[in-house]
């Protein structure tokens, strides 16, 4: 659905995006992450046909950006990293304005506006001024705006930036709903835990270059240098600790709030022997799980904090 080949953008002496090869399949929710100034916004703006690439090719729905931009625009919904507000418009007018910009005529236009207002829980604010909305509501309105023409691809640049926890959860739920509807979503965000929950694919960009691209499982596998298990037993954990420390693969054991954090040497996929050992020696296991590697950890390991 989205493909870039050696996509490059240069602003004078600054190389903002450097030979980016990106691939997003239909129905994917692609998390695009990277430090500030890494080139995420520039990439998204090129895909949204707002910037002309300096070099390389970007394809959206099979059309080439710059060559078939007019064919791409009806197929995409772009939410920038700020909320562009028409101060003097009401919510319904705002949506009708963009619906008209996408060529929708009345009465279909009015119906579509009502539908997206319902979908985004903004129906009660229909007659209110856009400027009177809270930041979270404005962001929902921005999402409502890009749904008006039922696009195949959504390009969302930091949609949850600056929102309070409740608004973030609301946006996340809305995006999950869109994912369920089969939209292809390219989303950049700094709130990595939310991307982890939402996305099936991740691309990490640094200094304009893509340092990693793949599924969530792949990224975790790539960054996981050792396996850490979380174990809790009934009764005193000291005996269990001694047993675990005697096992051959174990390199470190720490007790944190009644839970034993057990580090195994290297990437160990089969640690059933350890569980068997504890059970056979009479320890009643309450918890035995692999500690998940967070996206934050992956991000920190894969990037160096450099900007373009």
């Amino acid at each position, binding site marked *: 659905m989205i493909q870039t080949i050696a996509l490059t953008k240069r602003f004078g002496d600054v190389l903002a995006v450097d030979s980016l090869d990106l691939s997003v399949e239909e129905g994917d929710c692609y998390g695009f992450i990277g430090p500030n100034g890494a080139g995420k916004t520039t990439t998204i703006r090129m895909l949204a*046909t707002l910037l002309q690439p300096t070099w390389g090719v970007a394809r959206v729905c099979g059309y080439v950006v710059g060559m078939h931009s007019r064919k791409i625009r009806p197929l995409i919904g772009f939410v920038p990293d700020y909320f562009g507000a028409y101060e*003097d418009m009401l919510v319904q007018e705002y949506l009708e*304005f963009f619906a008209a910009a996408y060529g929708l005529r009345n009465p279909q236009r009015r119906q579509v506006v009502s539908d997206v207002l319902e979908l985004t829980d903004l129906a009660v604010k229909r007659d209110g001024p856009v400027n009177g909305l809270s930041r979270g509501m404005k962001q929902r309105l921005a999402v409502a705006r890009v749904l008006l023409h039922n696009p195949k691809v959504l390009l969302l640049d930091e949609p949850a930036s600056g929102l309070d926890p409740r608004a973030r959860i609301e946006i996340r739920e809305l995006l999950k709903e869109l994912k369920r509807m089969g939209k292809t979503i390219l989303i950049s965000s700094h709130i990595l835990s939310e991307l982890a929950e939402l996305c099936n694919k991740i691309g990490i960009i640094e200094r304009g270059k893509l340092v990693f691209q793949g599924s969530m499982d792949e990224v975790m596998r790539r960054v996981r240098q050792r396996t850490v298990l979380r174990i809790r037993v009934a009764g005193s954990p000291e005996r269990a600790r001694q047993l675990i420390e005697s096992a051959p693969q174990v390199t470190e054991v720490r007790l944190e709030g009644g839970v034993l954090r057990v580090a195994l040497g290297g990437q160990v996929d089969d640690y059933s022997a350890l569980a068997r050992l504890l059970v056979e020696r009479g320890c009643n296991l309450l918890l035995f799980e692999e500690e998940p590697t967070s996206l934050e950890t992956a991000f920190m390991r894969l990037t160096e904090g450099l900007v373009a």
Partner: protein
Amino acid sequence: MVNPIFMRVMNTSGRQRRHVWVRTVYLAVILMTLTVMMLVEMTSYRGEAALAQLGESLFRTISFVQLVLILFLSPVYTAGAISQERDAQTFGVLLATPLSNLQIVLGSLLSRLFFVLAILVSTLPVFALLYYFGGFELTDVFLSYGIAASSALLTGAVAVAVSIVTTGTRRVMIGFFLFVTAYLVGVWVLDHMLLVAIVPGYVEGSLDWLHPIAAMQRTLIGGQVVRPLWSELGAWDFLVQYPEYGYVAYSTALSVVIIVLGAVLVRRLARGYGGLARRLGQALYAVAGAAVAVAACAVLIRYRGPAQGLAIFLLVALPVAAGLVFFRLKRHRKPKTVWDNPIAWRERVTRTATARRTLVQFLYILLSVLALYVLLVLKVGGGSARDARVFVLVVTTTQMFIILMVGATMAASSISYEREQGTLDMILATPITPRYFIHGKLFGIIRYLGMFLAMMLLVTLGAYLIARLPVEEYLGSLVPPGWARAVAVPSGATGYTPRDGAWSNWSLRSIVYPLVTTGGLAAAMATLGMTFSLRARKTATAAIYAALSVLGVAATVTCCCSITGLIWVVGPIAAMASPFLTNCACFMPESFMETFNFSDSVQLIGFYRYFGMHVGVLGAAAGYGVFAWLRVRGMVKTFDQQVRQKV
């Protein structure tokens, strides 16, 4: 320690392109004025004494030009003093530093004022040259500079004060231009019309010390008038007799008061007293409005007696009050149906639906209707047709100027404002094409200007009907007899028939032609304004360029047309390119033909009336139309390169 705000502004602003342009325009205007004056006047002066006369004449002109330029250029530098910090969201950071209130205010003021004073000093060589000619004293130069500098100081101090309580540099700057104009006109009206009418024995010019231009005028003619010695005068008499010193003292003292007030309020207002500032602003508007209403009522009662005066006052005040109520109600409106061309809809409906623009439209309509009523009074009262023609000429020329200004500045903000608001990206990501976008914007602006043009048509059509129909029979009852008597031509003047003195030959073409040339030029100015909007990053820059372009184009076209108008036969036809001259030709045809030296030839008059004028007006409109079309084509062609590079 040097004030850090001062240093920052000095280091960054001096290199801004806008400031370089302002300095260039300032010096260009001064030098052009000097060159033209010297070329025109040098031929008529011979000998040393004559050189002194020339020097005096040039000194006067340059002093006036310099003062007017300073009054209107100072806001460009000073208006954004603190609002620019607010816009860039650096004001809060500044307030959190250990800088004192006075340091913040003085740093903001002096850094901007420095540029104004720098351009003022840049004309010193010109005055040095003129001093060599003689004809004026060194004291005159000091006074001329003193008035200009104290005006700049006052402008700067007010700019900082306004900036403290308001956000949005563009709003501050536009408001400031209006403020300077309103102040200059207001003080003059107060001095020469209101106080003369209200206060018995009041001497005109007693308030010259409040008015920079009047004070400058008194400075320049000071040597020719015998004035009492300073020591013999009391404080008030001193101000009246020596307004140039009075103005410098008054403006400096007022500036100090404003600066101190600004320093006291700057942190307080920022600490969450925004509501207080707003209420303060509203209270000031209310007090100013009430003062105007009371003054107008007092003048009317004095001239027309209590019953009639009050009736007239209510006749004007009630529609204004209704307009204000309507203006309040507009704030809580229902959603409007969006047109199929959303760009045009946005430009025409929502941008112009703001309370402020609604009020402007309402006042414009009200004044147009009032103008027609004044004309009716003149006709019913048996007033002079020439007076009526001059009156309509003034009204339509004012309307023309408003239309050009509104069109150009609205177009100038149409794209750059979207860029500033961050909405341009979203529009550009939709399937809207550059042609659709540009055409939509222009269509919306033209639809908005349609109301203004319709009011112009109302005035020209109404004037024609009032002039040609026996309205005194049908509408005579609408005019109080006292008013009719007041405007009647004195019986002793019956034997005198001035040019354009007949009601009966009010021309049919005067209904449409002013509209045609004004409409054509407005379209051209709107496209020019939009070109600025495409190129400029900031709306304020685009709006200033557009406003200056309107002034420049209107002045240049009128000057060129006046000169080419003197060319035999074709001249008056070419003169129709200027809407002002078209208005002159329509409303004062006899004066127009005499000015262009063909009033003696019946054939030429016939040629002009039945052929030349039509060709001139239609040709001018077509010319402006072609210019607008070419500009639109150019904008559509370069839209992607210009806009997509900037967004």
